[in-house]
């Protein structure tokens, strides 16, 4: 079905070393270093993430995984340029991120991220037209190609309110991918979908990756989704979010679900997230 397991290579044995120490790595697309994020409520100042560092290399599918309250969405919004770090910095291909921009296209969880006054095709064309990154005469064909990739050609002239939740998310993915961003940011894009649709969307996303090998940062709170969708998982601890581990999982896809090594990894991540009490209850795999 898909061939993303091929690229596992060095990742099949989890490395204890930091990535920086490995000599044969290409320059990183995204470099998050020592990022502390805070937000203010009416009465207090809350630290969402504390000195978080990780790198994203070309064609990686990095998943930010953690329970609610670990600041993973806040972190993604900071990478998108919506929230400024109070400490540390975020570099995109060596340039500091200071504001939102179309080279970091974001797909949101909410279905209302499509512009309701535009058809599917116009929605996909909109960022291309506004950013001026592509020649005008190519935009329409690029949009149609992107719509075709997410299997929505039949609905290209439909308005968003006539589409199902899964279709809306596909349009949002097509819209983001058509821009060919340096990195695709996905903020729990499948979390509002029913379980069957979510499963289908995950494998469609992997098939799209097989075709274009885009670089992606994907936020989720589902261990299973992280293992299937990601090539590398950044496990975050809650209150405030700190990096607990970075784990390679490129060898897993839907076919490996339920297999022994899949379950072992699932348990390992579970223990990282929930600590000793969980490992006592459910058998230690480490």
């Amino acid at each position: 079905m898909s061939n993303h397991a091929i690229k596992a290579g060095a990742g099949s044995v989890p490395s204890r070393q930091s990535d920086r120490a490995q000599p044969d790595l290409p320059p990183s697309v995204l470099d998050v270093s020592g990022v502390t994020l805070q937000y203010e409520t009416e009465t207090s100042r809350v630290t969402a993430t504390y000195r978080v560092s990780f790198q994203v290399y070309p064609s990686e599918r990095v998943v930010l995984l953690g329970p609610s309250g670990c600041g993973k969405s806040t972190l993604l919004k900071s990478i998108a340029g919506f929230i400024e770090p109070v400490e540390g910095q975020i570099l995109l291909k060596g340039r500091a991120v200071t504001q939102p921009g179309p080279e970091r296209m974001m797909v949101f969880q909410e279905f209302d991220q499509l512009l309701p006054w535009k058809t599917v095709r116009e929605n996909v064309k909109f960022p291309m037209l506004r950013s001026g990154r592509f020649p005008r005469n190519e935009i329409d064909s690029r949009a149609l190609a992107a719509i075709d990739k997410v299997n929505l050609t039949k609905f290209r002239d439909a308005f968003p309110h006539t589409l199902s939740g899964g279709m809306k998310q596909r349009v949002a993915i097509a819209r983001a991918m058509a821009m060919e961003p340096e990195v695709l940011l996905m903020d729990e894009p499948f979390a509002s979908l029913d379980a069957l649709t979510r499963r289908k969307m995950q494998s469609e996303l992997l098939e799209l990756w097989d075709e274009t090998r885009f670089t992606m940062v994907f936020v989720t709170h589902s261990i299973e989704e992280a293992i299937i969708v990601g090539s590398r998982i950044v496990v975050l601890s809650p209150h405030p979010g700190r990096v607990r581990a970075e784990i390679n999982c490129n060898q897993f896809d839907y076919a490996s679900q339920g297999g022994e090594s899949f379950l072992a990894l699932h348990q390992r991540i579970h223990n990282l997230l929930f600590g000793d009490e969980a490992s006592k209850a459910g058998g230690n795999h480490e």
Partner: protein
Amino acid sequence: MNRAAAMQLSRPEVEYALTDTDMGVAPRDISALSKIVNNTAFRRAVVLVVIALGWEATAWWMNNPLLFPSLSDTFRALIDSTLDGTLPSRVRLSFETLLISYTCGVLVAAALTIFAVSTRVGVDVLSTLTAIFNPLPSVALVPLAMLWFGVGLTSMTFVVVNSVVWVMSLSTLGGFLTVSETLRMVGQNYGLKGMRYVWHVLIPAAFPSILTGMKLGWAYSWRALVGAELVFGATNRGGGIGWFVFENRMSLETPRVFAGLLVVIIIGVVVESLIFRTIENRTVRRWGMQR
């Protein structure tokens, strides 16, 4: 797990091969009668006919054409005053004043709202202004307008603009403030800023509220205009439709008074149902932003 043991029944499993898959959508037979009854225009027309018959019966029963002329007398007066040119010229004058004032009002409201959403203090300024002026009936400003601008187009425009601006600003500002955080982030994600962001994201996203504001502004301005004309009477440019009603009352031409009121109603309904309904159908309803 004793659940399996607790279950006393033992039933065989089954799998079915699914055939005949094209029965999902079937055409419905709709009878001619229910088609007519389901037609809104038809039902409204029935109500209108009933009202007209009631009017005619009341006039016949009262038998006092000076106080309550029959519908047929009113229509005759309507046709007469249309043919002799008085009514059309009155309506035209009212419409000219209205179009100028309404356009000014919409532009002022747009400028105020854009100022409000682009600065933090702007929202406070506009909210306070609308809180002050919105409850004030615009006809109440007529004496002041006469004092400042005399009797003429300027006074009239001042009163009508005032009736449009506050209600429209209030509605539009509400629309801007309720644009979802997701849509805002989507717009910013594409690198849109300043006026480009307002034009391409905020205005379309707030369009249902903007349209409501324009509709309310229209209704308010039409009311304010007719009311002001009744007070101002004829200006140096001649009188409008309100003046038509007023002068015919003075000469006890009651059917013409009714004819004037009928025209006021008809114009209001036509603009509302033709112009605004058409805009709604082509925009917010088509986009699914309003039912």
